[in-house]
């Protein structure tokens, strides 16, 4: 694992990417954002991201397929699903396909940052949780 966590964000609504990118950068992570699932999957095949944050309902590829493919390509990556259509069934299905956590939209920036910090702490074996928050 590199010194800075590498995060890929995929959401077909640009505003989500626009808001998550600086928030993650500010917290010290390396971030790439995609609004197109095919492009995101191509990138996931090239680079070992530590965390993949993906929407569930998108134009083009279904988010569940992205979860499944990501889990196959990068089994060590933690996948966080963000969705505005949170139901018990979609949550269960996401976890079954390899999701690590599930955040319902709309969410607070702090919530998703906490989620990533938890992942970071776990990956670093229970070490520091980032910037001390």
């Amino acid at each position, binding site marked *: 694992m590199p010194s800075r966590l590498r995060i890929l964000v995929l959401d077909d609504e640009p505003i*989500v990417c*626009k*808001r998550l990118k600086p928030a993650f950068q*500010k917290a*010290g992570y390396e971030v790439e954002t995609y609004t197109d699932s095919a492009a995101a999957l191509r990138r996931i095949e090239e680079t070992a991201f530590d965390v993949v944050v993906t929407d569930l309902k998108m134009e083009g590829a279904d988010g569940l397929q992205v979860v499944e493919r990501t889990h196959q390509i990068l089994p060590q990556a933690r996948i966080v699903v963000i969705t*505005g259509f949170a139901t018990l069934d979609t949550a269960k299905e996401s976890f079954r396909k390899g999701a690590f956590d599930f955040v319902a939209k*709309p*969410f607070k920036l702090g919530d998703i940052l906490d989620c990533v910090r938890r992942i970071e702490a776990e990956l670093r074996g229970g070490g520091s949780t980032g*910037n001390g*928050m």
Partner: protein
Amino acid sequence: MGILSHMADLLARWRGSRGLPFALLFKKFKGILERNNRILELMADMGDKLGGEYVFDRQYIVDACEQLDDHVFKLISDMSVLGQRKNVELFLAFERIQHQLQEEIAGRHHFEGGRLVLPFRDIGPDAEDEVGGKLAQLGDLSNRLHLRTPDGFAITTAAFFAFMTRNGLLAQAQRGMQDWDGTDGGLRELSDRMQRGIHDAPLPWGLVAQINAMVDVLGMRRKQPLRLALRSSAWGEDGDASFAGQYATELNVPPDRVVEAYKNVIASVYSVEAWRYRLDRGFRETEVAMAVGCQLMAHSRASGVLYTCALHAGDNCEAMVISAAWGGGAAVVSGETATDTFLLERTPPYRITTREIARKTRRMVPAPKGGMTREDVPADQRDAPSLTDAQLEQLARAGMSLERYHKRPQDVEWTFDADGDLHVLQSRPLCSTGDAGLCVPVQDATSRAEVILSGRGMVAQRGVAVGRVVLVDHATDLDTFPDGGILVSKYTSPRYARVMRRAQGIITDVGSPTGHMATIAREQRVPAVVNTEVATELLRDGEEITLDATQNVIYRGRIAELDRFERTETDVFEESYEYRLLRRLLKRISPLNLVDPHSDDFKPRACRTYHDITRYIHEKAVETLVDLSQRHEALHHAPARRLLDGPPLGLTVIDAGGGTECLPEEAGLVTGQVCSVPLRAFLDGLTESGMWDTAPVPVDLGSFMSSFTRTFSASQAGPREVGRNLAVVLREYMNVNMRLGYHFNIIDAYIGSTINDNYIYFRFLGGVTELVRRSRRARFVAEVLERFDFRVEVHGDLVVGRIKKLSEPRMLLRMRMLGGLVGYARQLDARMHSDAQVADHVRTFMEAISTVVATHHDDRIERKGGGHAVTTAHPGA
């Protein structure tokens, strides 16, 4: 389902509906109340999203609006059944509002009123559709940031559409674009044809008359001959696309040439260059709309440009730069003249670090017959600085206020007039900061910093503030608030609007992100976190802190990297399409226009927002149920009876089964005949606490009388009007709806031996006084409820408290407390003169109520022993 088919369906169901069973009517009534609450909560949730703490997308907006549509439609339908009448007017109001919302979501801006001209001072927030990007921004500068901008008026985009449509010119442009062969020659031909068409076409006479009237008004306020500057302000201009230099500006225009100059600016929309610029950026022909600003020409003594971030000083952006010259500013902007250059620090007191005074031999001045000309600068001024130190400081302060507002370094055009007054002519983002901020090692800095507070409270406005803590309370003289301080206070207060221009940020112990102060902070984009509970204890007056109101953390000391990171963010949340869309939608959802049920305007036709419809139906539902119950044929099993003893609540009780014990022929009942467990406890609490009759603190007679007279005017003072309060009861259930003066109170409760079924829902809204006093009372109510373990939400003056699944004795204790609270809170807003009184009243109330609740059950001791559950869901939802 269309309105007509829906009405037919309802009518069919009503046929022969005389004597609908009470069970059905009551179910509808209860449904209306639950839906009413759900709608208010949805609206409050949507308002919270504007603070910037949440990440939401377009889908959220669409979903939230759909949910609202659905609830409001069903609310009207339920009301139709309950009242057994056609609510065509309500359905029409609903359809009107829903249509406007759908148009907004689809990206088709809805124009209200379609004003052709608009004085600058009337340009409100969200005016971009009406007056274009540049003028909306100037309106912001003047109306929100209180910076001086040239006086004048806008010829709106509605005027543009009126002119262009009447002459078939819009259709001509759209057709031309469809048929365009893609060549430069073709575009030039099209451009010539359009520009000729615009110059040859007459302006609608009504528009000409309104322009002339506005020009006359401006002329009357002026001693010198009137000269105007006409500037373009198109949709999208100065937003993501700057259109810099694409559209025409006409300077020093005499009154008789305004119409001609207007056409010149309009025609510039269709210049080859502007058209090409739009095509390159993917603008569609339907997105073209041009407003034109007609500004008084300032008699410029010195003018120039301010960059709030001097990029050539290095990436650190620790300085701002001012270029200035004598006379008008056009020469400075175009770089045609020698200018003085000043570098200043970016923090108060904005020390001047470098000054380079140039030899300035020529200056721009208005020509006698219109337009601008050049002349020699008098010999004694050529080598003199064009700005004084005081003027430089004034400019710096204005620049930083603009930068903070826009969250980006700004490129500001300004002028000082002959009287030495500063006028801001334009402010736009300083381009090409690029990704500079992202290279800032911000995480290194924050990880080293000491965190004072993290994740407490709610973000009312996101952003970063660096400055010294200024502790403020109700006794603080706000005039002494220092420039650049961070305001820290126990409570939110609209009073702080006065210092927002000077404050870097705001932190409070209590308050709501949808309250009045939060709204003002959002308007002026002052980073604000409310409801931290402990900020005033942890922060010391005068200490330097960094407030990150995006991630909701307060650090000790100055973290310049964080500040810089924020200012170089490429996407500003408040300028995102989704934010603007949500704000526009909420304007058609949240404002409450139908306040007074006794006013002539309290009718369906006057409903302009969903809140209006909801409020109207709530009032009518209570009224209808009382009326129905008084007509025995409609409610065979549920005669309505007035409560004859106890405090004068004016309560009418409808017993839906086992709630009272009185003989059928009795017209009224007394407390002793109430068997409903929750209602009995509520009434006992009200009576035993004695809080209805005895004022707990000395009353300021003036405000009390003013609220009293407003509440019950002579014509409304009859017992019948006061007596519209309604309780529907079963043995273990009560639903009480009260209008006490100007506030509304609902208590819905089930209390029985099955712990899991028990709940109390308490809702409190409104008041007679201004928002600040009502909000204080709301805080008082909220704090009391919290002391009794209610889960409480406060949105402005709306308080919702919920508690669930406690044992019967604990529930009854709380019902008795609510009886006391309802008595105590009545008219309390009129007595809430200062924020400090909130805590005083909580103390007084807790002491007074302790005897009432203690005699029945030592709840505090029991709670220590046994776990209790306070759950989150609405009892009926």
